[in-house]
């Protein structure tokens, strides 16, 4: 169940008069890892999964599993397990026979197939549900059975196509835990497609950002959030802060002032935009009794707007007389209002620049 998957220069075009759904995508998924493919609607997320599974042929490029080109193989011979957004449990089969389907078509005896299926049902916490009709299950249970069915086929790579997007938040969190537990138990290689950034970071160890068929960045969760390779990635990951300026001698210089940069996070000297997550900014009311930490550069600003995000608040802070605006998330407890003077600190470890 743990295989290395490589897409090499894969393109997919459905018709000549349309833009390609996938444009020369190269994606390397390490064995046993979980990669989330993230992107907005129409970015080619589902297409990339269908191409991996062999449900759609590639227009050009190759798909390798453990170094072997599987491009010419039919879906049933690729060893890719697929779980769609809808569970797609076969309604004419019981829960157990759904999970035993792969063994049945593989020619395994009925009793052995069912015994095996029972093990996978236990893995998804549904031991004892085998004799039920699939129509007796709740939405979450259906999706668990769908995952058990895909795992029971012992796939080389497990492909999940927005499998939890139809579930409510509580159930989705349960499913995320289930994926963690499955990974801990059998370490399958997983490729998960989602449009939900939180889901991607909760489940996967790597994120691949796809936009209009182009793979913008494939990196660890931390790097995707804090070291985006482009403004598009930053925006797709929900980043709100972009400060145009110039990189000069290890610092980003803008109307706001000079922000020191880590060597690993900066672009060569020249025009560049500074990006920093709104969650990473430290905001302090300047009339606070606690002064800024020594050695930390703090920028003075004024709160220009406040929007509530549940218990947190998203502040819009005007700096340099309004020449620069930064967004910062503020935890509950700090008494600031519109017009309050604040000090903003940009921690060096989370500031990076992208070339203009």
């Amino acid at each position, binding site marked *: 169940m743990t295989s290395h998957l490589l897409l090499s220069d894969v393109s997919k075009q459905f018709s000549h008069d349309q833009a390609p759904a996938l444009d020369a995508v190269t994606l390397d998924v390490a064995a046993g890892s979980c990669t989330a493919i993230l992107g907005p609607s129409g970015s080619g997320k589902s297409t990339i999964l269908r191409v991996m599974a062999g449900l759609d042929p590639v227009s050009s490029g190759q798909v390798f599993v453990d170094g072997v080109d599987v491009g010419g193989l039919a879906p049933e011979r690729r060893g890719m397990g697929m779980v769609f957004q809808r569970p797609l449990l*076969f309604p004419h089969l019981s829960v157990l026979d759904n999970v035993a389907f792969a063994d049945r078509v593989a020619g395994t005896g009925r009793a052995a197939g069912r015994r095996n299926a029972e093990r996978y049902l236990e893995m998804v916490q549904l031991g004892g549900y085998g004799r039920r009709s699939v129509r007796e299950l709740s939405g979450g249970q259906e999706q668990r059975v769908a995952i058990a069915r895909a795992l029971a086929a012992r796939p080389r790579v497990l492909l999940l196509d927005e499998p939890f997007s139809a579930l409510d938040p509580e*159930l989705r969190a349960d499913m995320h835990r289930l994926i963690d537990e499955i990974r801990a138990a059998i370490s399958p290689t997983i490729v998960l497609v989602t449009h939900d950034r939180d889901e991607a970071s909760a489940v996967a160890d790597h994120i691949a950002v796809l936009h209009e068929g182009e793979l913008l960045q494939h990196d660890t969760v931390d790097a995707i959030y804090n070291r985006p390779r482009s403004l598009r990635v930053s925006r797709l990951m929900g980043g709100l802060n972009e400060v145009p300026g110039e990189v000069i001698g290890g610092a980003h210089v803008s109307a706001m002032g000079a922000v020191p940069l880590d060597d690993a996070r900066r672009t060569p000297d020249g025009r560049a935009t500074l990006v920093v997550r709104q969650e990473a900014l430290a905001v302090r009311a300047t009339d606070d009794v606690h002064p800024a930490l020594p050695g930390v550069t703090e920028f003075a600003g004024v709160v220009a707007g406040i929007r509530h995000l549940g218990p947190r608040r998203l502040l819009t802070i005007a700096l340099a007389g309004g020449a620069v605006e930064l967004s910062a998330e503020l935890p509950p407890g700090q008494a600031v209002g519109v017009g309050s003077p604040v000090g903003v600190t940009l921690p060096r470890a989370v500031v990076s620049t992208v070339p203009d």
Partner: protein
Amino acid sequence: MSIHASSLSAQPAPTPSGGLRLPGDPGTRLTDSRGARRAGRVLAATLLGAWFVAPLLPLALWAFADRWSFPSVLPTAWGTSGVESAIAQGAVPALWRSIALGLVVAAIATPLGAMAARALTLGTVRWPRIVGLILLAPVALPPFAAVMGLNVVLLRAYVPPLVGLVLVLVVIALPYTTFAMRVAYAAHDVRYEEEARTLGASPWRVLWLVHIPLVAPALARAAFLAFLVGWSDYVVTVIIGGGAVVSLPLVIASSAAGIGNDSTVAILSLAAVVPPLALLAVLAFAGRPRTHAQRVAFAEVHPGSHPIRVALARPHPAEPGAR
């Protein structure tokens, strides 16, 4: 291999309460009509029932009447001379021929209609509107005119009458099977089949293990319609068959053309009515959910039957025992 997580208990889902009545359920105040409305509803249902039964009642009486003189309300002499006469006129072999003809037409027109419907629904056909209209044409054309023209073609092409008869009846049945299957394929999700492929099933096994079971009810309905085309045809059997196939409608027609054959015609007519009704009953009962779980499932795939009860039947994930 099992995973233990305290947050993920797997208690069986609670069985939906069978005795609970909800607004919108049949028999509740929301749906139950009262007073004049109720009387109107009962009257309409009675008239509708009478509309269907009225033609069959005199047939049933005539079938076992040796004599029924006007103005008696009931037959004046009961007997089985009608049955004997019908058998003597070859009703039994004609009945078998009609059944065979209906089954052959259904066996050919159903898969053809299913294939056409699938192609039209999935968009794999160029100009689907035009193709759909062409498929509908046999219903729109006057059968006599079309059959007369076809007869000339078939005779010139040396097509044997029996083959020609089946061929033409299949063409007439195709619009019915195609459109019955189009409804099914419009609601069919091909990803079931894709899922089966990723689970290791070859296209052939997907067809038998997933595709056909999923569309089976629609296939049965389409086959029933195609059977009726073969079963009840008269014009095509007379003209294209050219006397090679004497089916039940032909025997009925020849008997009805005579005088004083009322009881024979009645028996033959009943014989023509019973098999389709029996098939319909089999279809209706075979498609009915038997267990409570099946009834819930049935309600789910037939929205509108018990929407609120179905929603309740699915335990909310946050409920204890839901997972």
